[in-house]
């Protein structure tokens, strides 16, 4: 079980939860489980060809998965996964 932190802009899609415990051995597994449980997230996290959208950064324990192994980055029990879309407000 990893802990996935949901930014407030996406919380409406997961019933308002701030974080969710999600099973998955890789980022792909975690994201798949997440969109299966909360289908409203799918279009926001994944592009049409199934890749992560470029405007949402995903971090595992503070490291950007783009510089690890992308969707194949392994996730261990207790890891912190953070979804981070860009914000513009000033």
């Amino acid at each position, binding site marked *: 079980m990893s802990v996935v932190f949901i*930014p*407030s*802009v*996406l919380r409406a899609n997961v019933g308002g939860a701030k974080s969710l415990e999600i099973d998955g051995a890789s980022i792909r597994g975690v994201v798949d489980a997440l969109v299966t449980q909360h289908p409203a997230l799918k279009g*926001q996290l994944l592009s049409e060809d199934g890749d992560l*959208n*470029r*405007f*949402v*950064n995903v*971090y595992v324990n*503070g*490291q*950007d998965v*783009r*510089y690890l192994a992308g969707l194949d980055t392994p996730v261990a029990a207790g890891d912190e996964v*953070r979804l*981070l*879309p*860009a*914000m*513009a*407000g*000033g």
Partner: protein
Amino acid sequence: MPKSYADLLREARSQIREVSPQEVDALPPGAATIVDVREASEWDQGHIPGAHHVSKSYIEQQIEAIAPDRDAEVILYCAGGVRSLFAAQTMAGMGYTNVASMSQGFQGWKGAGLPFDIPVVLTGDQKQRYSRHLLIPEVGSEGQAKLLASKALLIGAGGLGSPAALYLAAAGVGTIGLVDFDVVDLSNLQRQIVHTTARVGERKVESARIAINALNPDVTVIEHEEMLVAANVERIIAGYDVILDGTDTFETRYILNDAAVAAGIPVVHASVFRFEGQLTTFVPFEGPCYRCLYPTPPPPELAPGCSVAGVLGVVPGILGMLQTNEALKVLLGIGTTLAGRLLLFDALETEFTELRLRRDPACPVCSDEAVEARAAGRPLATTSVGADAPFLLTTTGLAGTVSPEART
């Protein structure tokens, strides 16, 4: 047996190594710590570039802070080479093994035609106003003089820009540029504390200028009452030492990023949403740029602005002050900035989280390839925010903040 001045001088000469101004000048930078032991009034008239100042009467109390290593080379100088000999003797008595005195002192240095700095001398009022800065060794009168000579640009005189404008002004940043074309609205005042109820309806740049100058008349305010767009960004940011990005559209953030990277100007970036904020400092080529972090802007439903989604007023306040802290460090050249780190703030939990950021080796703006391409006059293609994100003009309720010019 009593000793005369001549006896003491002879004794000091026999114990302390002396070096000539030319020898000191020939040292590689950083090879030795150079300390001026004259009085403050003499230092203010001019000193060797890069030297530290500790009056001879404070050597015992202050030298360890400047030269912590007893075996590193320290060179002392005064006006003519006598006071520095005696000060060096004191240091030798404290266990410094490699301390020398510069013969002929600062007069000899100037006589040899070597370069020197004349520090900015603060006025009596300035010494009082900035006294709490002057007491901090990392700032001091040299740092304060740096701030007074610095130019900071605020993109947006809104939620983030308000605390930034006030604290930069209070800190004595000599020139503050403001980019904003909006007017003060009653709904701004829940967070935009640089403005006032009495100034609702006034131009924001003018309202902010009044507040800045009321706080600190030392500050020159430059009003850029225009939209930041691709066509004017280069002209507006030219000459500024640091930029604080407090805009509320992606379009402006990308335009600013691309121009600031090309101009080599650090951008302190912050954005807010309801109870949350993000903050980082983009130092061109040292850390990632905005496009490394977010290569493309999000779709509208994922990125509403404050005018649609709302924001707790204190959140831009906190983020704006953290931005100012970053900007002051950049201007003073002290501490460690957030370059390469993204700081998240969650006001509901009072929680700060730090994420690691990296430069994108394929970045169309800050990669080596992008720099070469720009130098060759054929910059790499970037995602055009305006074309891809028409939502910026409507859904976020920011109609009017983006010009048709910027969309191309």
